[in-house]
């Protein structure tokens, strides 16, 4: 069964017909072509599909698309200004926090949610904010360094 839904993704208004059993991750990737959000486990164990919905970090694989009705979504594609990286993205690049890169969009979006909520996070707050995310390459050290540096670079701004 299909249903029309309207929502805002990265500042753009969308009206799409979706089957009610489709997840937000599927609609973002397959209907809107926003493949930056990644499917890793598809059951909420890894954080790879994280997006921000009305200011809150959500797992798009556990969110039905229709739950996003009339909501505002930010995906990894919504961070950069054209080809100019967002300070968090730039910090991930500069600190070597990206290796295979598959989990990186989830971590970067989580970092955005952390800094949006707490502009000057402590290391423990950073760790808590990414504690449900899985990375198999980096061992997390440079990811924490990158988020810390980004928060400092942004000078407490959002």
């Amino acid at each position, binding site marked *: 069964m299909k249903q029309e839904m309207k929502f805002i993704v990265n500042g753009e208004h969308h009206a799409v017909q979706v089957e009610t059993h489709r997840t937000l991750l599927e609609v973002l*990737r397959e209907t809107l072509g*926003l*493949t*930056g*959000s*990644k*499917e*890793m*486990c*598809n*059951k909420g*164990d*890894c954080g*790879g599909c994280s997006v921000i919905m009305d200011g809150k970090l959500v797992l798009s694989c556990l969110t039905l698309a229709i739950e996003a009705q009339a909501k505002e979504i930010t*995906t*990894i*594609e919504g*961070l*950069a200004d054209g080809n100019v*990286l967002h300070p968090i*993205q*730039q910090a*991930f*690049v*500069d*600190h*070597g*926090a*990206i*290796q*295979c*890169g*598959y*989990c*990186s*969009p989830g971590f*970067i979006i989580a970092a955005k949610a952390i800094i949006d909520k707490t502009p000057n996070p402590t290391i423990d707050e950073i*760790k808590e904010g*990414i*504690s*449900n*995310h*899985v*990375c*198999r*390459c*980096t*061992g*997390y*050290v*440079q*990811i*924490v360094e990158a988020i810390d540096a980004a928060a400092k670079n942004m000078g407490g701004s959002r």
Partner: protein
Amino acid sequence: MSNDRFYEFEKTTLIGKDLPRVGSVDKAMGRARYAGDMVLPGMLYGKTLRSPHAHARIKSIDTSKAEKIIGVKAVVTGIHDTPRGGVFGIIPHTRDHILLPYDKVRYMGEEVAAVAAVDEDTAEEAIEAIKVEYEPLPFVLTWQDAMKEGAPLVHDHRPQNMAAHYLVNEGDVDAALRNSDYVWENEFTCDVASHALPEPFTVVCDYEPSGKFNFWMQTQCPFQVRQGLHNTMKAPSSDIRLHSLPMGGAHGGRSDTPPAALIAGLLSRKAARPVQIKFSREEVEDCMRDKAAKVWKMKVGFKKDGTITGRDIYMLLEAGAYASSAIVELWVPLLIDEVLWRAPNYRYDAFLIYTNKTISSMMRTRAHVGPMAMDVCLDQVSEVLGIDPIELRLKNAMLTNEITPSKSVITSSALSESIVMAAEKSGYKEKRGKLSHLKRGIGIGSGNMQSMFYMGFRAGSTAFIKFNDDGSCTVFTGNCDLGQGNQTMYKQVTAEVLGIDMEQVKVCFGDTELCYQDPGDYSMSALVISAHAIKKAAEDANRRLLEVAGDILDVSWEEVEMRDKKYYVRFRLGKGRGVSIGEVCRTAFKRGKPIFGFGDYRARIDYSDFGVDIKEPYNEKTYGQKVTAYSFGTTVVEIEVDAETGKVKVLDIWAANDCGTVLNPMLVKGNMHGQLSFMLGQGLLEKNVWDSKTGSKLTSDFRTYKVPTVNETPNIECYFMNKPDPYTPYGAKEGSLGFGCGLHGALSNAIYDAVGVRVYDVPFTPDSLLKLIKEKEAGEKKSSK
């Protein structure tokens, strides 16, 4: 060979710099295109029907209902579609795997049939409509059961389920142990571990009517996968093209030819449309690859002064259902083990055993049981003989230019230096034995890793560089980039040789149509083999550039030198006329002789200059040079044990890494953090469980198979030994694995230091450690009564 000894260590401008990983910007923006992001016009979605039995004969398959479902475009089965005679195995005598079988299934989840349809839901419906008649057979899930007399045979032609045997026997081990002052003996095990790769396996195949198969899939060894497909598809190699892609993790788990690639090829050909097969998380964990379980029994003889007289090793390795690249795991522990600690008499007797479980393959850190066994041995023996543990290590550590029992030359080793460094930085001597009142402990462990092992004609790489009219260039290499930074390294080496900016170098990697044969990112070959070939190609191009520049400047090429990206006559450097690389390239085009570079590097096997008179490794005596370079290193770990739960918390790690010249410290450190995280997971958290009644794997997701998160990350200090190897590009060696292979030994020793119990079986889970702590406490109470 004398040329190889020359490394321009002092003069370099890019070597040793912190350079961000190439490709990170695309990945940070979510713009990198992985296999699962690919959509081709008219693409169909494939699903696989998998065996519900751990071991069964396939009696019949009826696909008629599935074929009638609207939207189904192709159905394939082993009986009807698998090209006959096409059997996969990475060496001829282990060709045991029919990728889409028609006789038997050998583990739960093995491929039986597949469907391509217009969408995933239709494909799933069609899979459920296929009727398969099986004759279930008894199965074996453990090596203990598999080796019993009369055990069910996974492969009928392999008695006692023995897939392969490998023996190295040097000197007289039995006599050496008989004549030793002290003989230490123990048994270690490690359980099956999973790669738990972030990106689910995905393959897209687009078959062209001309007969060509185009593949987009994750692989770390494009040419080995092409070989596997060539053998099983029965198609010429030139008709199988693997396109390169970024991939979400590999860690050894993407080296083999996946059955899904053959299936996608068969489906695409039959449907005459592109087909994508994407695995679910459960399929990734159950039906791709695991790391083999291992048993390591060892006797070590010592003199009173602590000198090792001989070592006797018996190893069992569990292959799972097929030998696959687990056959390599049978050899690799030797490559690691014989290189760390000197042993004049040495026996390595290793067996590969089939079971009805997920297929095993290689995995980073695979050889850790051997180093761990020796770390624990040296810790225990230091107490028995009353010798300082660091002194005992230094007495037996292998040094530069020593020759291993199976006759490999160690061209550089800073093992001893790494032991001293890690011990000093951690305060090991001051802390050891002094922290147990806090249930804290400190432990040391050393490891090493081979860079490349000899694989015949596949042990070489050929690189090519083409130049554009503005002087920028593209490097072609058959190796790939798994995310650890290979592309960055390839650009760095090329730009260093040519004296140009890294931005002017692009890399085309891992495309089997555009690039030459290469071993792939397999056994740490990216640096010592592939980057070596690239360096030679850049040197070849540089000579051509200098020649044309010399012509323009009217001097011989030997009088030309580059400064600030321009060519000058040497005695007028920076003055007079400077010629840009673009001008040189344009001049060369005009002459009809465009600039290019060609370089080839083969693993060196002739070490007669070191007095080793063997020209071909893996001969019948399995002796000779097997490895181009060895990395070493030592880690010290400080831990805290919760005596109520048995949980180990790692507080600090001091890691001393002998990776030769450090090409790019920021990247190597990141790779070291990753290695330690991977090892901590395997050492303390990650455990697979099978249902013994059905043969079903019960740990098929991140919820049940627990990988480390940021919460398990300790403080990590990294140190570099900076001892260049004379035969590798710029003296660099593999930088992220070897040092970390000592971590499990360090953990085991630290647990003993903290709570006084010895752990020998990886993983050291809370329940297993708690049991040992309780047993010890009960024993102490008993003896105090």
